């Protein structure tokens, strides 16, 4: 039970954090040049974006959950279980960020999830 709850917190907060960071970046807009000044200005704008900090807070919670889970479960269980994040990430992208997921992209995400789980179990 403790493992299931921590894993759910880990997957949801990790995905939530990534989605919030992605949302913050979409609000700022695309970076068209990789010159140091443009990147610095972009980072400065990102630091003033509330969604970025919401994302970082959630990613911190995910990191703490991961450390807690690893203190009583094996890495060989935790990492394959985390492959679920690819599916929750795709769902988050679709429903929170309005991304259009084609059947091809869903198939790719499914294969990657199963593949990551097998690599870690193998």
């Amino acid at each position: 039970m403790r493992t299931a709850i921590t894993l759910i917190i880990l997957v949801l907060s990790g995905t939530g954090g990534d989605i919030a960071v992605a949302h913050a970046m979409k609000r700022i807009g695309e970076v068209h040049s990789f010159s140091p000044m443009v990147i610095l200005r972009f980072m400065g704008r990102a630091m003033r974006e509330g969604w970025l900090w919401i994302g970082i807070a959630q990613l911190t919670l995910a990191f703490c959950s991961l450390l807690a889970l690893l203190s009583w479960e094996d890495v060989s269980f935790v990492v394959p279980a985390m492959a679920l994040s690819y599916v929750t990430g795709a769902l988050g992208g679709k429903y929170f960020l309005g991304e259009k997921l084609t059947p091809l992209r869903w198939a790719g995400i499914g294969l990657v999830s199963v593949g990551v789980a097998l690599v870690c179990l193998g």
Partner: protein
Amino acid sequence: MKPSPTHSLKTSILVALLIVLNSAGNFFFGLGMKRIGALQGWTMPALHAAFVAVFSSAWIWLGIVSMLLFLGALMLVLSWADFSYVLPATASMYAIVPLLGHFVLGEGVTALRWTGVTLICLGVAFVARTPHSTTEKA
């Protein structure tokens, strides 16, 4: 919307950079923590000693720098590319590590792991055939 070749190139370069930085970060953290050794209990002096050991390790600092660069590169690529595109594309690292282990270090790779590597490569190839951005620009 069909992405321009420049756009696709920019996305591919940053995704490759994400894979390298994340792998390097994990490698440096792993190396640093192995050298520090297991935590000697959960008492305050033991935790303090572990904290000092962690933050005086050059490997850990290299890991932190790699991960900060990873976050910066992730923020840049997410400013135009879909999250559901970037996330599975970065999973290539799970396939690259066993491939490097086998072909560079001569490590044995189990059949289950080869199956996983094949599925990841197929999955990434599928995702790469979809447009990297499907949302309206801000």
